[in-house]
C-alpha cells in the first residue's frame, strides 16, 4: 500500500462530504427512476413543498428543530468516540419528563416554565443515556448494543405508561391529557403570521442556541478538549490524567439530554401532550445528520435543515407522486449514513489520485517553462 496523500483541509471538510452526499442522492435518484418517476421533478416538488409557501416552510422548521437536537446528540457522543444510537429512546422518555413538569407547574407562564421543562426533559433523556454510558465505562459493554436495547425498553415502558396510566378515561387514542395552554410553548405563528397553522414553535430557537452551546462545549471548554482527546486516543487521554470512565458517562448523559430536548418541540410545543411513539424515527435521523454534518454544529445545522426539507418536501411529494412514499426518505437517510459514515473512504482514494495527478501536471508545467 502506498502512503497517504496529504489533502488540503477544504477537501476533507467540504469536498469529500459533499461528494458522498451527492452519491447518496444519485443512488436515491436511481431508485426513484426504478419506480418510474422523474427524480429531477421530484426534487423540484420537494423544494417547493419545503420553501415555496409559509405553511410548508413552517413544517420544514418544525422538522429541522427535531433533527438539530437528535443530530447534536449523536455528534457530541461522536467526539468522544462513542456511537449513541439511542437517541430514539432518549427522546421518547424525555417526553415524560417534559410532560410531568408541565403538569406540575400547570398554569405557569411558558417563559417561566421553559427552563424547568428543559431541565426535566434533559434529566430524563440524560438518565436514559447515562445507563449505557455507565455500562460502557464500568462494565466495558459496548454502548451501541446497550443503546439499542434501551430503545426497545423505552418503547415498551412508554407505551405502557401512555396507554395504561397517562391516558385520560374519555380519550380513545393513546395520548396523555393536554398541557395547560398557558404553560405550553407558543407557536412561531404568534409572531410570524406567515407560519400560521404550522407546528413550528419557539423550541426552534432553543435548537439554534443548542448549536452554539455544543460549539462552545466541544471547542471552548476543558471538558470538550478532554472528550476530543479521548475520542482520538483513549490511551493518551488516560496518561494525561483524564478519567475516561467519568468522561464516557458525562458525555452520554449530555448526549441523551440533547436528544431529550426534542420533547420541547413535540410534547411541550407542537402536540402539547405526550403521544404514543411521538419520536417516529427522528432519533435515527440524528445519526445521518451527525455524520453528514461531520459532527460540527454548522454541519449539523445544515444537514438538519436538509433532512427537514426532505421530510416536509417528502410529504408534498407523496401527494403529487403517489408512487413515492415517505419511506423514500428513510432510504435516502440510509444511503447518507452509508456513504458519509461507513464508506467515507471509498471516494477518498480517487480524490487523492486526482490531486496527485494535478500536482504532477502543474509541476511538469512549472519545469517546462
Amino acid at each position, binding site marked *: *500500500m502506498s*502512503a497517504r496523500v496529504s489533502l488540503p483541509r477544504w477537501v476533507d471538510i467540504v469536498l469529500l462530504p459533499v461528494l458522498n452526499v451527492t452519491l447518496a442522492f444519485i443512488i436515491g435518484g436511481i*431508485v426513484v427512476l*426504478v*419506480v*418510474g418517476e422523474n427524480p429531477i421533478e421530484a426534487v423540484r416538488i420537494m423544494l417547493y413543498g419545503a420553501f415555496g409557501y409559509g405553511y410548508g416552510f413552517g413544517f420544514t422548521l418544525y422538522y429541522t428543530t427535531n433533527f438539530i437536537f437528535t443530530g447534536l446528540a449523536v455528534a457530541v457522543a461522536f467526539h468522544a468516540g462513542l*456511537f449513541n*444510537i439511542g437517541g430514539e429512546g432518549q427522546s421518547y422518555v424525555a417526553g415524560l419528563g417534559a410532560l410531568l413538569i408541565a403538569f406540575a407547574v400547570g398554569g405557569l407562564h411558558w417563559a417561566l416554565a421553559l427552563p424547568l421543562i428543559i431541565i426535566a426533559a434533559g434529566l430524563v433523556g440524560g438518565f436514559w443515556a447515562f*445507563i449505557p454510558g455507565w*455500562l460502557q465505562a464500568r*462494565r466495558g*459493554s*459496548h454502548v*451501541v*448494543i*446497550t443503546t*439499542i*436495547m*434501551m430503545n*426497545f*425498553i423505552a*418503547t*415498551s*415502558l412508554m*407505551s*405502557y405508561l401512555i396507554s*395504561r396510566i397517562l391516558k385520560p378515561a374519555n380519550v380513545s387514542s393513546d395520548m396523555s391529557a393536554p398541557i395547560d395552554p398557558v404553560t405550553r410553548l407558543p407557536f412561531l405563528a404568534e409572531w410570524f403570521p406567515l407560519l400560521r397553522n404550522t407546528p413550528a414553535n419557539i423550541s426552534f430557537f432553543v435548537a439554534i442556541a443548542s448549536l452554539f452551546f455544543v460549539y462552545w462545549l466541544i471547542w471552548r471548554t476543558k471538558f470538550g478538549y478532554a472528550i476530543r482527546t479521548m475520542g482520538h486516543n483513549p490511551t493518551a487521554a488516560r496518561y494525561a490524567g483524564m478519567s475516561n470512565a467519568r468522561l464516557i458517562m458525562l458525555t452520554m448523559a449530555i448526549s441523551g439530554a440533547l436528544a431529550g430536548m426534542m420533547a420541547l418541540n413535540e410534547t411541550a410545543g407542537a402536540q402539547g401532550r405526550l403521544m404514543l411513539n411521538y419520536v417516529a424515527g427522528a432519533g*435515527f435521523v440524528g*445519526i445521518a445528520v451527525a*455524520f453528514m454534518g461531520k459532527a460540527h454544529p454548522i454541519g449539523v445545522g445544515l444537514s438538519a435543515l436538509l433532512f427537514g426539507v426532505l421530510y416536509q418536501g417528502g410529504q408534498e411529494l407523496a401527494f403529487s407522486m403517489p*408512487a*413515492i*412514499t415517505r*419511506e*423514500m*426518505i*428513510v*432510504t*435516502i*437517510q*440510509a*444511503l447518507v*449514513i*452509508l456513504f458519509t*459514515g*461507513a*464508506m*467515507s*473512504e*471509498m471516494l477518498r482514494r480517487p480524490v487523492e489520485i486526482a490531486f496527485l495527478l494535478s500536482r504532477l501536471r502543474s509541476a511538469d508545467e512549472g519545469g517546462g517553462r
Partner: protein
Amino acid sequence: MEDIISILVTTVRVSTPLILACLAGLYSERSGIVDIGLEGKLIASAFGAAVVAAVTGSAWAGLLAGIGVSLVFSAVHGLASINFKGNQIISGVALNFLAAGLSTFLGAAWFGRGGNTPPVSGDARFYGIQLPFAAELRDVPIVGPIYSGLISGHAIMTYIAFLAVPVTAWVLWRTRFGLRLRAVGENPKALDTAGMSVSWLRYKALIITSVLVGIGGAYLSIAQAASFTPNMAAGRGYIALAALIFAKWKPVPAMFACLLFGFLEAMQYRLQGVDLPVIGPVPTQAMQALPYILTILLLAGFVGRAIPPKASGLPYVKER
C-alpha cells in the same frame, strides 16, 4: 398438557427466525465483523422472498431470492467494513435503515398495498411438514403430543434452524475452518502471518451469515406469514443479537437463549388480555422488554460476563 404443548409449539415457531439470525450473527462476529445489520437483512430477505414467491409462484424461488438479497446486503457490509476499513457499526445501522426504507418503498410502488406484498399460497408458500408416523402416533399418550404435536408439523426452515445448531457447533469446534474462523476474530494478524487471507475468511463467514439470515427472512414472509408487511422483523434481528451476547457467542447456548426469548414472546401472545389478581390485565409491554432487560442485566455483570471476540469491530490493516 394441551396448553403447554401449544405454548411450546408457538415458542418453536417464533424462535426459528431468532435461531437462524443468531447463528448468522455468530459466524460473522466470530470472524471479527460486528453485524448490527441482522435486522435489516431479515427485513430485506423477507421482502425479496415474498416478492419472488408471489411473482413466480414458487416458494423455493422465493427462498433463493431471500438468500440472494441478504448476500447483496452482506456484500455491501463486507465492502464497507473489510475493503474500505469503514466503521462496521455505522455500516450495519445504515443497512438496517436501507432495508426498512427500500422494502416498504418498493413494495408500495410495485404492488400498491401500502408496502404489503400480495399474499402467497399453494406452491408459493412453505407449509408444515408432517414427519413420518406423526398421524399414527397422535393418540399415544405423552409421545403422541410431543412427537406429533410439537416436533412434527413445522416448516422446513424450522428443521434447518435446529439442525444448524449442532452443525455450527461442529464447524466451530471441530473443523479447520472453524479454528480459523475463531482465530480471525481473535487475532487476525496471526492468520495473516500464517499466509492466510483475512479478507477472504471474513467474506466466507459473511456468506454463511447471509445464507442463514436469508432463510430466516424467508421464513417470516412465506412460511410463518403469507406475505411481507412493512417492518416485518419487528426487532427480531436485535433480539438475535441480544441472544448472541447472552449465549457468549456459543452455538448451543445461543439456541437456548433464542428459545428463552421465543418463549417470552409466546407467553406474551398467550397472556394478552388475561387478568391477573392484583396487577389486573397483564402488561404485555413488560414481556416485550424482558429480553432486552435481561441482556442489559447480563451486560451489567449481574448474570455472568459476556466478552466478545477480541478483534470484532476492528478492520484489519496489513502492516506496510
